[in-house]
């Protein structure tokens, strides 16, 4: 556990088409792949000069639809990272992929470039749902992509969206069981939420469409999901993430544990410790703006903000409590040089424990399953106790 390797996130900001539910930064314009790669390499060099003597524990290429890129581009980027930092022997290298943009040969090329883990955004295994979600692939393509990925990559994760309009617990149970049987080691199961920055939000505003599940339905679907996945040997390790034990996303878990991560590429965010102070970096979303800044300053960050101790601890709490393991006392001490107890409002923690929503022991502080599904209310309750 003392082995806390650097997590590197690289953002690819293009998609073939925008999905109406997605709030991640992406543009449905032709990629300028070489410019993007060169700027990413420049940014990596910039941070390498500041963060040396660290091993890289994970690389995550997200987006957008990074499976659109030429595998050779990815190979060059990974080579750049390896030139600046030693990679841990079991380094996790994840690529996000859209079933519409790949075939088996393409998958094999990514695998040869060094990708060890594929995160495949299938979103649904029902045609009507895929149409509703604005996906450019069908169920058949999704299944073919999964079969190829299982064959080619050592590790596979599938993304699905549930609590869709009109979806019954029974229908979802069938669908998620199909997904479980397809050979992936990891499932990310997200309830559909309408983010204000998306096309779905516009629909809700204009036609008064009701796209999110009613609170009671949402709760029932969430509870059902937890149960099915636990029984199938895929317990939740985070609110929406399930894995066979040992198959958790190392990269994302590092982020939830509030360890250092580098944000490379348009719209990428990072958290880096430098001389005892934690900095938040934030890159601009537009690829051209980002690339110009990288050309001018060596990095794209429009903001490099030193977080106060309180801000950093609040972030660590709100991220850490998303994990089933919760906040670990030893790790907290290493992060902040302070006891976990000091950063928690103890009467409120006691009340949460009494109500069966949380557990507090020598290992640390974490939610129970009942607490996890009420996490936002718990966070509001705890944060108010912070004065």
């Amino acid at each position, binding site marked *: 556990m003392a082995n806390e390797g650097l997590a590197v996130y690289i953002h690819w900001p293009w998609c073939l088409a925008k999905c109406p539910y997605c709030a991640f930064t992406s543009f449905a314009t032709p990629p300028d792949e070489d410019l993007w790669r060169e700027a990413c390499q420049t940014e990596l060099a910039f941070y390498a000069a500041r963060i040396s003597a660290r091993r890289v524990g994970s690389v995550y290429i997200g987006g957008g639809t990074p499976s659109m890129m030429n595998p050779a581009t990815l190979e060059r980027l990974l080579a750049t990272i390896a030139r600046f930092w030693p990679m841990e022997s079991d380094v996790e290298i994840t690529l996000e992929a859209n079933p519409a943009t790949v075939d088996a040969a393409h998958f094999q090329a990514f695998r040869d470039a060094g990708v060890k883990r594929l995160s495949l955004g299938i979103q649904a295994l029902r045609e009507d749902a895929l149409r509703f979600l604005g996906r450019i692939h069908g169920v058949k393509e999704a299944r073919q992509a999964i079969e190829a990925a299982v064959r080619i990559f050592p590790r596979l994760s599938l993304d699905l969206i549930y609590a869709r309009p009109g979806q019954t617990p029974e229908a979802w149970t069938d669908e998620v069981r199909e997904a479980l049987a397809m050979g992936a080691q990891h499932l990310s199961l997200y309830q559909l*939420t309408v983010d204000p920055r998306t096309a779905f939000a516009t629909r809700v505003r204009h036609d008064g469409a009701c796209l999110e599940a009613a609170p009671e339905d949402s709760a029932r679907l969430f509870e059902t999901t937890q149960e099915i996945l636990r029984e199938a040997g895929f317990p939740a390790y985070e*609110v929406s993430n399930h894995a066979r034990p040992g198959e958790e996303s190392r990269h994302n878990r590092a982020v939830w544990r509030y360890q250092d991560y580098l944000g490379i590429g348009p*719209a990428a965010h990072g*958290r880096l410790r430098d001389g005892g102070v934690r900095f938040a970096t934030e890159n601009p979303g537009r690829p051209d703006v980002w690339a110009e800044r990288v050309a001018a300053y060596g990095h794209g960050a429009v903001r490099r903000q030193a977080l106060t101790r309180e801000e950093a601890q609040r972030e660590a709490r*709100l991220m850490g409590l998303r994990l089933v393991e919760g906040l670990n006392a030893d790790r907290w001490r290493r992060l902040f040089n302070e006891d976990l107890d000091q950063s928690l409002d103890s009467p409120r923690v006691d009340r949460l424990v009494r109500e069966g929503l949380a557990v507090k022991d020598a290992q640390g502080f974490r939610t129970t399953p009942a607490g996890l599904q009420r996490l936002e209310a718990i966070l509001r309750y705890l944060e108010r106790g912070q004065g």
Partner: protein
Amino acid sequence: MESLESLRNFAIVAHIDHGKSTLADRLIERCGALEAREMRSQVLDSMDIERERGITIKAQTVRLRYLAKDGKTYVLNLMDTPGHVDFAYEVSRSLAACEGSLLVVDSTQGVEAQTLANAYQAIDAGHTLVPLLNKIDLPASEPDRIRQQIEDVVGLDASDAVLISAKTGIGIEDVLEAIVTRLPAPQGQADAPLKALLVDSWYDAYLGVVVLVRVVDGVLRKGMKVRFMGTASTHEADRVGVFTPKKVEVDELGPGEIGFLTAGIKHISATRVGDTVTEERRPASAPLAGFKPSVPVVFCSLFPTDAGAFERLRDSLGKLALNDASFQFEAETSAALGFGFRCGFLGLLHLEIVQERLEREFNLDLVTTAPSVIYRVHRVDGSILTLHNPADMPNPSTITTIEEPWIKATILTPDTYLGDILALCSERRGVQIELTYVGQRALVIYYLPLNEVVFDFYDRLKSVSRGYASFDYVFADYREGDLVPLNILVNDEPVDALACIVHREQADRRGRALCERLKELIPRHLFKIPIQAALGGRIIARETIPALRKDVTAKCYGGDISRKRKLLDKQKEGKKRMRQFGDVEIPQSAFVAVLKTDREK
């Protein structure tokens, strides 16, 4: 100075919406008091709120010149008066300044509760009344039936009622002739010492306090040293004038004339309505009868939603009080709502208007507590406590009896709705005094506890009669009642802003209704929240708000942290709009909403 013979002072009285202000507009237009470009609808309703709601709040006056058919020119002083019961006091002042009234009745609607109340007030003031049947241009107009109704219900000879349409101008000439021929001229002695009735006063940003007077005897001259007999203060009348409705300065006002004076007075509290104005050098021997001061009867507390707006609220209340002597306020602290003001009003409409003006003209966001009345609490030690805030209720063991104000209510309704209205009145502890049928309509007179009326009586009356019943009331007396303080506990803590005083028999119903409403209004929390209604230590109603079942964001990755952290910061900010009771947050809007309706399920 005008000769008495050529003067006519008159008021227009009517039920709301029967066309009083429109008639005033037509008279002003006909007598050429304003250029066409200056005419706008409802000239005399100068506040935005008056024009928008179509009601008159402040009495207004205007001087008109009319060349009559007899070849003589008359000076007509028109007083436009408020129609609503809350402003009955303003009506009585206006009536005291005139000799006659035009009683406007909508010929499509007929006599309503305020027609009756205002007509009786005018008769009590010794006025000669001329009935006018308005809106005769409408197909639904039934002048013969309404004429009969005026005779039956009001008891006034309506055989020579004038048929008009204030909107189209039909009959306006006849109205003017009726004013001149049927209303009496004022009387008075020009050479007697000055005696003028202080009818109204208001604050004008340029002139200071403007005082509206009706001269009874003597002459008021510009530059004269005048004395206000009641407040025993002396001022120099630096301006004397009339409204046409523009302010026009004149040198003097003689007996029977209505006009204004300014005297460098800074605050309206220095001018008492009903006071007698006389000349310092040659004072009148005795003052005029005057009026009873207006007394607030309905109280509620106003709190700024944003605690930082407290000073602004204080200033705004002060500015409103400048022009509204009947409005009272004093600072108050509530455990639930923080710093605010306890305010007194003439009635519910007055309350609503003040609240609306504060929100609109002064841009304040307010939380209003339940309206309450003044209770007289007789204590064991023989003292009497005047209680206008339920939160100040003393320990029950120190109380012998509690008295509450009762009103005499007049309700006119199509007889179809009579059954429901009688049921409503008896549910509200009403005592029936009279029930008369007039054609298809019923006239009901009830004694009702004011406490039961301020809660939601208007709303319920409107809903059971589909808006057809009209309502008016006067204060009757104080009566002893079996009254008890009802407390509301949220999460086992009493919430002072929700405390109220109720009749013992109503306590269960009210307690249950409040708990049920709060259950709907308070959002679910992390933990379940008990809501209880208590009489003393006894719980009479209980509801539980269940705990939240799920509240968690689906996605939160590296790029979401900053936004998420800021969201939590913002939620801390949002606390301003929430009130904290232990672990429970009650949205401020709940305090208002819970008291708005006492819905029957």
